């Protein structure tokens, strides 16, 4: 190791989802906090293995939908019965019924925006620069390999102990990732 190069973390490669999941359980139980598992597809059960809580994306979607619903009714009320009232067939200027299809679509539209943009916000994406993306070996993370990465910034990180932990989890290849 050359000392003047900053390191980002220790990258451990696994060949099967089961191996990666057992490794994740071990890392979780060892009490690490700045670490992650990178996989080509979401693995069922990995959230528990990592000790992740339920995603907060639902809240973004909920507030998006609530905004869409409110704004939809306000828009129709403003346009058809306040700013430019038109009487059609002697019916009341405002009713909850006739704008409903429009409000319904606006609710769905903004709830969908909330879900997608909320997800991107929670993931801090787009992020076009990432130390892992410079690593040649890491290309397998979108192909058929599974990785556990423990950041050097983790308070529990120690070169030898972290290595031992990952080796005991059955890791066959390990390398340091430059920052």
């Amino acid at each position, binding site marked *: 190791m050359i000392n003047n190069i900053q390191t980002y973390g220790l990258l451990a490669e696994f060949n099967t*989802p089961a191996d990666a999941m057992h490794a994740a359980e071990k890392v979780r139980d060892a009490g690490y906090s700045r670490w992650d598992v990178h996989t080509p597809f979401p693995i069922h059960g990995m959230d528990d293995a990592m000790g992740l809580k339920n995603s907060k994306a639902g809240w973004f979607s909920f507030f998006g939908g609530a905004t869409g619903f409110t704004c939809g009714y306000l828009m129709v009320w403003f346009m058809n019965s306040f700013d430019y009232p038109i009487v059609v067939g002697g019916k009341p200027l405002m009713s909850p019924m006739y704008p409903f299809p429009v409000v319904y679509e606006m609710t769905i539209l903004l709830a969908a925006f909330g879900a997608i943009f909320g997800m991107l916000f929670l993931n801090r994406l787009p992020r076009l620069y990432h130390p892992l993306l410079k690593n040649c070996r890491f290309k397998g993370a979108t192909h058929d390999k599974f990785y556990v990465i423990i950041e050097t910034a983790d308070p529990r990180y120690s070169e030898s102990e972290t290595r031992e932990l990952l080796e005991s989890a059955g890791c066959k290849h390990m390398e340091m990732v430059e920052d």
Partner: protein
Amino acid sequence: MSSPGLLPSAKIAPPPREIEREPLVLNNRSLGWISDQIAGIIEGKTPTWWWVTMFISFPLMVMCFAMIGYLISTGVGVWGLNHPIAWGWAIVNFVFWIGIGHAGTLISAVLFLLRQKWRTSINRAAEAMTIFAVMCAGIFPMIHVGRIWFAWWLFPLPNANGPIWPQFRSPLLWDVFAVSTYFTVSFLFWYMGLIPDLATIRDRCKGFFSKFAYGLFSLGWTGSNRHWSNYEKAYLLLAGLSTPLVLSVHSIVSFDFAVSQLPGWHTTIFPPYFVAGAIFSGFGMVLTLMIPLRSLFKLHDLLTIRHIELMCKVTLATGSIVGYAYGMEFFIAWYGGNPYEAYAFQNRAFGPYWWAYWIMISCNVITPQFFWFKKLRTNVVIVWILSIFVNIGMWFERFVIVVTSLHRDYIPANWGYYSPSKVDVLTFVGTFGLFMVLFLLFIRFLPLIAISEVKGVTNHADPHHPLGGAKGGHH
């Protein structure tokens, strides 16, 4: 085969062979094989048939735009519209294309909520088909307004005409919101599904420009499980939101007709009947597109006969709903006791447009019934030919609904006959060119099967399966 809550000593016998489901990816293909196979389509040489199809589709697309230019510069008189048939092919084509656009979201959303894992092999292409079909559909309401430079009046935009706003009691305005929301949400859903796959291609491709482009659009995706966790939640939410959306869009399209007072249009059965018809036509189009792609790109292990059979079954189910709706319309026309309604339906089947009606019935009611037979469902050539009939039949359905209901108004002085003009025909044929150009570009530059999703449904991806690395009963 064991689940996490079981004691280490507990063992579960595998299900008997005869009730085991056929695998979704045949020949136990590995995870790497899946990305090699699908990304290989983009990385490989452009096939000759692609260029041939492009050389046919591109001029058709140009013709479509030329016809639209001619229409705008001359006026709607270039179409075959007359009094009383003021809605002709433009509306027929609009409903036809938007109907086709329903299968993509149904496959990606409804089948996702129903845990139908087979959707993963077809959802990407079907969603792309949806987006391109909605683009083709969106052209027609825009250009049919006559003075298209005023089409922006459809949107609630501030303007200098004093406080004048759109009139929200009109189903045509509901349609503007439904279709634009549908396009936006379908597009975002499709793009979100693409992000991990774009990252796969980013990590494989060699060229500077392609590295840059795939890198940019994959947003820096690293496959982090912390990201997957939010991603899967957002995916579930979008599926939950798209399901009522897809059902509402064609319902609202049907309101364009059903909310009017016209016999033949003013029926309460329209929303469910339109939605079933839309899914029917959409699956017809998915079959028409996917069967050739399957053999051209040798996707037999990913898009198995089981996938085709299942799509045939959906077509059969929705086609039968459509057939039932045709019958029920006639029953209510008689049972409802309204002479105008009764006349509209008699005239539909035996009037001057009888030929359109019976083409519709034979394509939409009889064709799908062949899918009861496994022999026919598993024969891709026959399925492909039948799927073409479904497409034809569903176009005629919209023609029958729009034109036959309009052509005989209440008094005989207001009776007429509609025939499309050359411009009508060429514009419609041109939209197929536009659709094919977009679809060809899609299969050339984007993964046409969702790589990460297909990987996720294989045994290799299951941490509790021996192929996924599970070790006997003690993990």
